[in-house]
């Protein structure tokens, strides 16, 4: 008996993805940024600086970078940070590590929990579904930013802050995914091939593994891709507020927060980390959009 009757797609999803120029541009940017993050120490050593060493000789008497554009030169490609003389290129490049690490890590946690909760709630239904759905609702409305700020104050200084951020952002990030997955699961439950396999006596594990998850996979991938920029944004927001990754570990959000005060005198200090954050969130959003169109033709733009 044929369990699944896929409508043979006109084209393979990958082809459709490659045909979408914006998605390709987004994907390429993500790839480049990933490479930059992985090779950050290498890149900054090519330039000859690390993001921690002070260079007071690059500053004038008042702490302002010497030279144009915040001290842009052959030595300092993006100029230097005011008040410290640390190399801005090294800071931005290393900041990509923090952003991507926290963004991707938190997304993985959020997706794992969200899928687990969504699939089980949708599959079992009944009181189990009602309890999990209420928990999801509560978390959706939870003032997590306030909670994170409070948590930052009581967490021991030795506890790695990056890990704390990944955990906290991830643990508060799953309700959206859980809702979508639950809805999809409930829809799948009515599909004939699922009903048939249940009628034939397939066990819960078998059904979940062979029927539900494979059919949810595209939703999950698309949703995860679209979640990453939000998570990166959350990390930047927390760092901006001074409760993210502690200094001197480079983080775009914190640098942006510091740069606000310098907009009038040293605008380039804001431009570089700001552009990096803008680029990475835009790239993930474009790629996620393209991916959704490619994997789920029904929602594609006509």
């Amino acid at each position, binding site marked *: 008996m044929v369990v699944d009757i896929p409508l043979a797609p006109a084209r393979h999803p990958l082809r459709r993805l490659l045909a979408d120029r914006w998605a390709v541009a987004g994907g390429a940017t993500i790839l480049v940024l990933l490479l930059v993050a992985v090779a950050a120490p290498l890149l900054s050593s090519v330039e000859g600086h690390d993001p*921690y*060493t*002070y260079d*007071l000789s690059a*500053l*004038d*008497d*008042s*702490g*302002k970078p010497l030279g144009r554009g915040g001290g842009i030169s052959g030595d300092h490609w993006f100029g230097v940070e*005011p*008040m*410290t*003389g640390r190399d801005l290129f090294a800071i931005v490049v290393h900041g990509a590590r923090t952003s991507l690490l926290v963004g991707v890590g938190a997304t993985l946690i959020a997706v794992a929990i969200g899928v687990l909760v969504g699939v089980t709630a949708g599959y079992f239904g009944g009181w189990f579904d009602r309890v999990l759905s209420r928990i999801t609702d509560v978390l959706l409305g939870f003032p997590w930013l306030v909670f994170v700020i409070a948590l*930052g*104050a009581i967490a021991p*200084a*030795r506890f790695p802050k990056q890990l704390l951020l990944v955990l906290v952002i991830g643990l508060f990030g799953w309700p959206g995914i859980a809702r979508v997955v639950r809805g999809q699961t409930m829809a799948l439950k009515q599909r004939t091939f699922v009903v048939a396999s249940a009628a034939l006596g397939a066990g819960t594990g078998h059904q979940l593994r062979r029927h539900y998850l494979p059919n949810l996979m595209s939703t999950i991938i698309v949703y995860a891709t679209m979640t990453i920029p939000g998570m990166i944004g959350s990390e930047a927001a927390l760092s901006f507020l*001074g*409760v993210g990754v*502690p*200094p*001197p570990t480079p983080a775009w959000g914190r640098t942006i*927060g*510091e740069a*606000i*005060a*310098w907009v*009038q*005198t*040293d605008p380039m200090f804001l431009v570089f980390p700001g552009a990096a954050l803008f680029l990475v969130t835009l790239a993930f959003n474009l790629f996620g959009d393209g991916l959704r169109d490619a994997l789920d033709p029904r929602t594609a733009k006509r």
Partner: protein
Amino acid sequence: MIRRTAAVALTALLTLAACGANSADDKKESEGSAKGGKLTILTAQTDINFDPAKSQNLAITTLGLVLRRLTTWDVQPGKPAQVVPDLATDTGTSSDGGKTWTYTLKDGLSYADGSPITSKDIKYGVERSFAPELSGGLGYHKGLLAGGDKYKGPYTGGELSSIETPDDKTIVFHLDAAYGDWPWIVSMPAFTPVPKAKDDPKTYTQKPVASGPYEIETYQQGSAVTLKRNPKWDAKTDTVRTAGPDQIVFQLGQDTTVAAQRLIADAGDDRNAFGAGFVPPAQLVQVQSNPSAKQRLVTSDAGALAYLALNTQRGPLKDVKVRQAVEYAVDKKAFQVASGGATGGDIATTLITPGIAGRQDYDLYPAGPSGDVAKAKQLLAEAGRTSLDLTLLSENDSDSLAKAQAIQQGLQRAGIKVTIKPAEESTVTDTITGDKGDYDLTVSSWQPDFPSANGNIQPLFQSSEIGGGGYNISRYSQPEVDKLIEQALAETDATKAQALWAQADKRILTDAPVVPLIYTKNSFLHGSGVQNFFVAAFPAYPNYLKVSLKQ
């Protein structure tokens, strides 16, 4: 360790920027002080506390406009601060070798409601500052007045017998021990008259009975406080307040960066405004390229001491060799740049700050502005430490974090790993002045409450000031130093006292409980319509009492 509850509120940490600033560009002293206009003061505080018992205000800032004390400060540009009579006819007559101080009130003093100011009201004002529910104010007197250590305030404890009021004009203070700086002590907010009939400890902070040239017109929590003239104030009885503006408005909760930008722009009502907070480093740079704003920037002389406190009761920092290694490893130059460079302050090597009488300049750890890494490593090796891992507690605003990182990278060079723990301002204050002492390092800054070396040393290094709200944040306890401090406190001969303080200064730094970083300079901005705005050597805050507006 004796823990005085009285020791609660010592000095004006820079963060308690309840102070304001005047600009020194008006050299038209000849214009005198014009009357009239509406002065606006921009402050980051979200609340102004007018309860004298709970206040840490300097005599020349906010509270001084509304409330008078027994004595006050005469602060003028280019002259050292003087203690002068305010409600009293003189700065105090001492007898009994400096243990008894007698004051007589001037004639014709009255409150805003017309009732006369009596010495009994001053006694009551001092008594209520002992009440636990009104803690938080400057509390030097609480440990000095006889019986003050057990007294719990007038609400539960009756009267304090060491203050006598033989008649409505006379007040006599009896101290436990001789105290030469007592005339400065009675210039503090607690020595403000409070009429007993009008006292409600819950609301007095918003509704004080005015004795100064202004009274509170409106008090809008979190947004603004407006002062209007007090018609009963008589200029003839007051030598320090010029009472220029007709109205003074405090705009609360103003971000310092935004406030600085407004004052740089100098538009509309902001022409008649000044900022009570320090101009942040980024705006200092901005001002340099703006000739109009540059003219309206007032920078103090090097004043308050910014220092790195080492918790002497924690792990490896118990070892004096390790602490001395830190003295050499710190990069003071980087800290100075993080504080705004040369406009931010001068490199410091002593505890007693410049401008304080009797200060001796010395450098126990000659390492130059950028530190001596080799010497630090050598000292660490002598102490048997190859690596060190310390926590630095810092406030989480970007200026504080910049300073913390300057310390961090300096120590890193000598192999000392520093983890910065950022926290809210109130959390930091509670932790460093609390009993647990859960931190290794912290950066702080200290402006003495009165211009005597006493104010530099005693609150920061006497062992009785550890925890319980005290500011001995390096938790330094050295019996020899405690003895020196007690000796110096009791010394009524100024020259001898100064020599003792200078001796204590060096003795303390031998143990390296703190690293002096810079003598900070405070910068303030004011609008083009503001006159007589200056910042003297001490205190490094503008004198609110003399500010006036161009008419």
